[in-house]
């Protein structure tokens, strides 16, 4: 008997299989990432709060009976009587707004995993990169700088300021009548000490631009909101601080608050060049490219008034590309037609000009990856 009986205290399989299970959860979430990042519950959840996500691939499928078709036998302490309601059917777990295939109604309880916004970010951001990051003169990602600038009466002996200590000793004895070095007293000692220098940080600025003309419907608003949300979260993770400037336009462009940016909708025509020109002037006045990593991104459905303005826009973009790290254009449209703006833009061939088209929720994830490609260069 004895030889093959395991040593119970060496049991570790539970922990290692638990890790494997966790790894499978991560894999499954990664596979579902495209859906997860368009999940309203996730982006509206405040950090740290977990939400439940059904993970289908971790379900252990069996031949089993339909869970609620037949009755069951229960037991209590005698409280209930026939007719009493003792519970509600579990609300069908469903992955957000993605319609499940027809014929899936029976599977009520998929294995659910609790995730937080941070979990999703970790997964998403490990798929994204920050290409064309430029070293800015005053350190793009600075450490706080420590400077010895102050003197204190207490401190570490290693930081002893000998000259000042000698002077204090001399002064004390001089006051007492003898102007020479004498016996030492702890009060004589002076130490050099540091203060944390607040270094002016020039990091990154996102210039978010959005077409608020009548042609931008709810779907378009939501997609631009989601895209901007993940973009800002991502950049905030990469940089110590990220400035965001919100510009909206119809025939004229103006700067607005974040709230207005996502909510405004106005009727009227569209003149795209107006916003790109405003963008240029914002950069020129507040965000010199020598100091900032600049990420302009424009959301539009691609409608523009005139070809002349399209050309003007292209010229503006050419100028922007000199200053910005990446210039992004996200065309959000529901139909399959191609826009005049897009056909103009497609003529711009530049590695740092990134054009994505979003026609459905599924496109968001590839769009983010196109905008922030993970390359060797990007790391």
């Amino acid at each position: 008997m004895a030889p093959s009986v395991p040593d119970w205290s060496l049991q570790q399989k539970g922990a290692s299989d638990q890790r494997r299970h966790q790894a499978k959860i991560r894999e499954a979430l990664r596979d579902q990432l495209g859906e997860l990042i368009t999940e309203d519950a996730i982006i509206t959840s405040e950090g740290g709060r977990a939400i439940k996500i059904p993970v289908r691939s971790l379900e252990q499928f069996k031949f089993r009976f339909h869970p609620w078709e037949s009755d069951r036998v229960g037991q209590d302490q005698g409280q209930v009587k026939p007719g009493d309601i003792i519970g509600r059917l579990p609300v069908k777990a469903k992955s957000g707004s993605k319609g499940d295939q027809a014929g899936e109604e029976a599977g009520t309880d998929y294995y659910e995993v609790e995730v937080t916004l941070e979990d999703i970010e970790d997964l998403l951001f490990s798929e994204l990169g920050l290409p064309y990051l430029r070293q800015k003169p005053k350190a793009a990602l600075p450490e706080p700088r420590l400077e010895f600038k102050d003197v204190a009466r207490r401190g570490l002996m290693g930081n002893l300021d000998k000259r000042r200590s000698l002077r204090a000793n001399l002064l004390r004895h001089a006051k007492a009548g003898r102007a020479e070095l004498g016996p030492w007293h702890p009060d004589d000692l002076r130490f050099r000490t540091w203060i944390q220098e607040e270094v002016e940080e020039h990091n990154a600025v996102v210039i978010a631009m959005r077409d608020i003309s009548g042609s931008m419907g709810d779907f378009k608003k939501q997609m631009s909101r989601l895209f901007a949300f993940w973009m800002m979260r991502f950049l905030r993770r990469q940089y110590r601080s990220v400035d965001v400037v919100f510009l909206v336009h119809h025939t004229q462009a103006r700067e607005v608050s974040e709230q207005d940016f996502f909510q405004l909708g106005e009727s009227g025509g569209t003149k795209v060049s107006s916003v790109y020109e405003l963008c240029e002037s914002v950069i020129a006045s507040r965000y010199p490219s020598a100091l900032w990593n600049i990420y302009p991104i424009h959301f539009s459905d691609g409608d523009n008034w005139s070809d002349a303005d399209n050309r003007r826009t292209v010229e503006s973009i050419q100028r922007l590309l000199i200053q910005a790290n990446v210039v992004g254009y996200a065309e959000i449209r529901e139909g399959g037609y191609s826009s005049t703006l897009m056909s103009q833009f497609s003529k711009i061939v530049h590695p740092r000009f990134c054009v994505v088209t979003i026609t459905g929720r599924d496109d968001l994830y590839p769009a983010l990856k196109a905008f922030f490609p993970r390359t060797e260069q990007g790391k």
Partner: protein
Amino acid sequence: MNTVTSAYPDDRVIAELAQSHGLKLCPVIFEMVPASVLYEFAAYLIPGRMAHWSFGKQYQLLKLRYDYGLGKLYEMVVNTNPAYAFLLESNSSLENTMVRCHVFGHVDFFQTNYVFEPTHCNMIDVVSHHADRIRQYEFQYGRVVVEALLDSAMAIEEHVDWAPPDLSGLPPARAANDRGEADAGYPDLKPAAAKGSAHRSTRASEYPAWDLLDIIVRHSDGLDSWQRDVVSMVREEMQYFWPQIRTKIMNEGWATYWHIRLMQELDLSDSDYVDYARLSAAVTAPHDFQINPYGLGVRVFEDISRRFGEREMFFCREVEDDVSFVRNHLTQEIVDDLHLFVFGRDQQNVVVKSKDWKIVRDQLLHELTHGGVPVISVEDGDFHHRGELYLLHHHDGVDLDLPYAEQTLKHVFKLWGRPVHLDTVSSGRRMVLTAEGDTITQVLV
């Protein structure tokens, strides 16, 4: 525990007391283990078992519940000879005394109940060898490959031949024969590879068959010999667990009956006795409208003993399983006393439907039949004369969960290597599901 001035009786004293009442015991090895180890054994159901993520999932669940103070496990008994009983290190001495009494009840049940007759007496060895071979295969063929194979085999693990037809209540002659080979030495070294090389049987006489995994091991087109070995390991382990699934109520009831009996006869202080009574009551109480098998089982055994005498009770623990136990011995009085009821869906609500004892009994029998697992037979292993597998669901009033069935059928396809069909009934209409690759088709017949 075997210190000199122990206020509590040790294993030997309790074992002798149990034997004096007629319990048939084999040697029991008691081991004190920390919670992490006990919960690990509970997740794997037996120590030393192969690695698989699903056990890790279960382990995490149990451990989490323990850490949050929900659902504490006091012990786990492994049906081997000698038997192993793992007790939680943090149990009090009083708790452990009760647990020891309880354990002897289980050990007697394992030794005497007929459904355990074919059980291998050294299953820890068997599963440890399985675990070694799985590890070896992981090394040779890659962890992901082995894992995917286990996923598929485990999806249908219940569909093994767990018992011969229950004709006379006699010990199963057929199972004994099947086991003849197994019992002679190392069952896990059965020449699975040799079996695997057998060609697909076209003999109609083999069908219908109930042992889906066995048919796959012997006749699948899609498996190498090592893969057949893995599937037969899953099969063998499940055959070990089936008797426990079939006797959950009886087994726990019997162990509870004996911890109550033996504790009454042990010399305990008054305060200990009050603590014990509280503990024991908690063990048999229902939670969340779930039937408590401990409470139900012990109540039925007590009733048999009261009405027909102790001999009859001992006889029942030998020749019944949960289905016959409930069918033969559940009475109106017990259903009323234990507040059993039938509940179910009424639109979006869960509603108490009846407390009528016959309705309760019949519903319970339905839940217990075949361990609550749909009965599925292999009707043909060469369907269409193209080597396709034809499964039949024996519909007994409740439909299958179709999305689950579809996903499971994909696993069967992976094991079989040729199209797989499942004949079932859904919403009153007969239909055949077919899995081929990742595609599922539904045809109404």
